[in-house]
């Protein structure tokens, strides 16, 4: 009997039991309580220490640049830092070196950001006293995540991501660079019912193929949150359908394109090279931004920090506008920039495609820019995009106000004036 | 009990060599042996002499390099359903309870479930484990596990039971108990038993005859007839002690 009892006791001395081994004494109960109290105190102390340590470590905040680099390195390799030093930076009549303000911008390997890269290459930022780094992102989501950790101050992206930036990241929209709607199309196979039904059956939207009935229940491969998705929403709206009437499968564009070619899905949303490729394969554009009358621009967003420093941000806007106008007027050379940019960032592109894409894309003239902001045309665009998102439940009415109040075209107007004074022919 | 009965098991010049490119190992050189029906034959030898290998050959787990085995006069190769083995340790499948372990032999031969159960119960009772049919090995002591092993061997309908140092892993106390137990079981249900041990006292206590093996590679050194010792054996009697001395001397325990 006794032996069995001893064995149990031995078992109880394992691990923590041992650490808190109670001394055998007659005042056992009191000693036990004491032991438990001590334990509690130790634990409390331990995790106060934990909290303090984590606070100190995080508070040992890294300077903006290091944070930016760390954050961009984390965004799954979708961001890269380019630091192209311009060859000649100084104005001829300055003998002392200007002190350059350090600034980080963000952009995408797309036509709407081309102005920034051109300006960087030609040294126009340095002319204005800015030392610029550009973070490149292939998609809007990681680009916005980076601004949350203060990685960049001004950035260019599509309107879909732009709206998210206004709603969820408290950014401000300063304007736009290019129209963003060319090459955004919804493709179907040439032998599908939609293609065979032909165009012209939807009132007011004669560019769309087929009838609403044909679209119901179809499986559409699409990258949600992209402009392609917005185009799809616009198409559905034109057809009088809701998002629930079709089956949208979220896929990244390269995978979506591959899958579609392999026979998956009834329709796919494509853009840029994928569109060109798809048409080469004989796919039919059942709808597009143009057909759905979605003439949207890209957007330029700025963080609160950027707005606090108005002077610098204005200079940035000036240069961006200058670069954008250059692209507008020098399409062939711009195509080369576009091609190089795509190759650097790993985006599929051919020289022929670059040329045709850049040459054929719509770009606003200076007058059109002015008109966008003097009238309410720009905010109308934002409103339209938001309407589609609200209809499918992505954002709520409350978010609409945020978006409408979130843009301020003053700096862009100033940039246009600056351009007209200094560089226009 | 008079031991002139027929020859149950016969080993003729059994030999086992493990060949290898790095050097051969001669385990059993030459063992020739006749086991009488229902006798309790003890095989005694120093450690590592090859007695386990010999037993494995008899039971079919190892193939003899040379030599023949006869059961009831007919030559046998490989495993034989009339020959069963009780192992020294870890012979009870831990995932089966006692009854399932005991049932193993008949189960593999496709015997009906009820019949199996009945005979299984019978033998469990015989080895003194009534009430423990549903227990798992982790709930049984060492001695009890060996008893299950014995019951299984019996239940497998074996006429010849080979036992390879079955009590070697038990503590001294249990060992003595089990020695009495095995004799009691043998009295109750007589079968031919070949019992391997390296313990001289155990050999004399249990056996009708003792086959003394040499060091490795094993040959038969001497065969002792113990029929002059009365059962139950008294391990402090003079005749016991004399036998013990004789065998000890013969075993030549010095290091060579």
């Amino acid at each position, binding site marked *: 009997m006794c032996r069995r009892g001893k064995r149990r006791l031995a078992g109880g001395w394992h691990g923590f039991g041992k650490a808190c081994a109670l001394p055998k004494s007659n005042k056992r109960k009191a000693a036990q309580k004491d032991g438990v109290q001590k334990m509690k105190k130790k634990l409390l102390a331990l995790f106060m220490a*934990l909290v303090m340590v*984590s606070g100190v470590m995080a508070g040992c905040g890294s300077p903006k640049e290091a944070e930016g680099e760390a954050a961009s390195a984390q965004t799954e390799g979708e961001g890269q830092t380019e630091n192209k030093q311009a060859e000649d930076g100084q104005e001829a009549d300055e003998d002392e070196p200007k002190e350059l303000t350090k600034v980080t911008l963000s952009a995408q390997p797309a036509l709407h950001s081309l102005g920034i890269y051109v300006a960087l290459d030609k040294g126009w930022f340095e002319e204005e006293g800015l030392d610029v780094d550009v973070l490149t992102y292939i998609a809007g*989501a990681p680009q916005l995540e980076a601004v949350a950790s203060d990685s960049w101050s001004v950035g260019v992206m599509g309107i879909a991501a732009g709206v998210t930036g206004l709603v969820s990241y408290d950014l401000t929209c300063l304007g736009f660079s290019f129209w963003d709607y060319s090459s955004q199309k919804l493709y179907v196979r040439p032998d599908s019912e939609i293609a065979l039904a032909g165009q012209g059956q939807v009132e007011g939207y004669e560019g769309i193929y087929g009838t609403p009935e044909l679209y119901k229940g179809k499986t559409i491969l699409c990258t949600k949150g992209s402009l392609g998705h917005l185009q799809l929403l616009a198409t559905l709206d034109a057809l009088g359908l809701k998002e629930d009437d079709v089956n949208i*499968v979220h*896929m990244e564009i390269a995978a979506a394109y591959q899958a579609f070619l392999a026979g*998956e899905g009834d329709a796919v949303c494509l853009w840029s090279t994928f569109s060109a490729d798809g048409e080469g394969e004989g796919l039919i554009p059942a709808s597009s931004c143009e057909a759905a009358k979605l003439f949207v621009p890209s957007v330029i967003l700025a963080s609160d920090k950027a707005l606090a420093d108005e002077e610098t941000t204005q200079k940035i806007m000036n240069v961006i506008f200058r670069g954008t106008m250059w692209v507008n007027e020098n399409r062939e050379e711009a195509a080369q920039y576009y091609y190089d940019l795509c190759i650097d960032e790993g985006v599929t592109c051919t020289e022929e495609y670059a040329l045709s894409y850049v040459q054929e894309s719509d770009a606003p003239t200076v007058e059109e820019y002015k008109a966008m902001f003097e009238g309410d045309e720009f905010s109308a665009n934002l409103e339209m995009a938001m309407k589609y998102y609200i209809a499918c439940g992505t954002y709520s009415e409350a978010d609409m106000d945020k978006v409408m109040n979130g843009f301020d075209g003053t700096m862009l107007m100033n940039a246009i004036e600056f351009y007209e004074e200094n560089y226009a022919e | 009990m008079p031991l002139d009965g027929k020859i149950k098991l016969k080993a003729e010049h059994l030999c086992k060599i493990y060949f290898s490119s790095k050097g051969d190992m001669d385990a059993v050189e030459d063992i020739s042996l006749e086991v009488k029906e229902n006798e309790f034959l003890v095989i005694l030898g120093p450690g590592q002499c090859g007695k386990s290998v010999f037993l*494995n050959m008899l039971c*079919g787990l190892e193939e003899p390099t040379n030599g023949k085995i006869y059961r009831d006069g007919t030559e046998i190769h490989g495993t034989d359903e009339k020959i069963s083995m009780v192992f020294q340790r870890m012979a009870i499948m831990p995932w089966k309870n006692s009854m399932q372990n005991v049932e193993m032999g008949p189960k593999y031969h496709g015997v009906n479930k009820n019949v199996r159960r009945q005979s299984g119960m019978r033998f469990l009772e015989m080895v003194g484990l009534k009430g423990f049919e549903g227990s798992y090995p*982790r709930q049984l002591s060492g001695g009890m596990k060996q008893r299950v092993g014995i019951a299984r061997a019996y239940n497998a309908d074996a006429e010849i039971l080979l036992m390879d140092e079955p009590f070697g892993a038990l503590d001294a106390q249990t060992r003595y108990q089990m020695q009495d137990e095995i004799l009691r079981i043998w009295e109750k249900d007589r079968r031919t038993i070949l019992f391997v041990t390296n313990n001289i006292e155990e050999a004399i206590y249990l056996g009708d005859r003792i086959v003394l093996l040499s060091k490795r590679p094993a040959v038969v050194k001497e065969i002792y007839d113990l029929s002059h010792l009365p059962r139950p054996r008294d391990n402090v009697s003079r005749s016991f002690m004399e036998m013990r001395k004789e065998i000890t001397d013969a075993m030549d325990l010095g290091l060579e």
Partner: protein
Amino acid sequence: MEQMIRESKKREALGRMKKESIRNLCLGIVGIAGLLLLWDMVARFGIIPKNLIVSPWEVVKTLAIKMSDTKPEGSLLLAHITSSLIVALSGYALALLIGIPLGLLMGWYKAIDRLIGPVFEVLRPVPPIAWIPFTIIFLGIGLEAKAVIIFLSAFIPCLINSYSGIKLTNQVYVNVAATCGASRWETFCRVGIPSAMPMVFAGMRISLGNAWSTLVAAEMLAANKGLGYMILMGRTYGRVDLIMSGMVMIGILGIIFNAVFDRVERFVLRWRVTR
């Protein structure tokens, strides 16, 4: 020992044991509570920027809202959970059905080992995500493709553990079966497999973890429902609360799985010697 003294000693001993188990429980709770507190403070004081983290209470709120609200990604929480469970468990079941028998056979029959082993070693290091383009082409974008991605990461521990487990079969058991007249196949079924069970279960447990954690990658392939999808949408629309809710939900379900698995294991392996 006198009865009275014996009983009082027993009471003391039982009391001590109870205290110890309470203490252990408290430690566990304190650990989790500490983590939650840390998390809350980090979110509240902006140690990590507010757009990248959300406090635990927000997560609870979001989960509650998602139970009845399909916005913003179009499905209720339950639909997401169901979809993810189907995907993950399909892949897991496939892993068990293929990995375990294959591992057992490879471990028992040398011929099978020599045949399949090298192929397995070559394919093993390839990460499941790398298979996505292939699966799209051959299996499309439905449940099959996603289940296969999960299968690829889940079946390796199953196979390896089954293999090792059966290789460790005690030779004595094999001998016993042989003396009972069992063929090699019978011995495989009646001795090899039961004997390998503890290791097979260990492999199954690891596989379960793998399957569950590959879920997000598999749903990245193509989805319109699921916890991984919910996280992806959270990222696309800047809704950190969705991201973290998804993560927490995945974590909770993982814990539940583990607990259920524990129970099952303890029942099936009730013969095992525990210390």
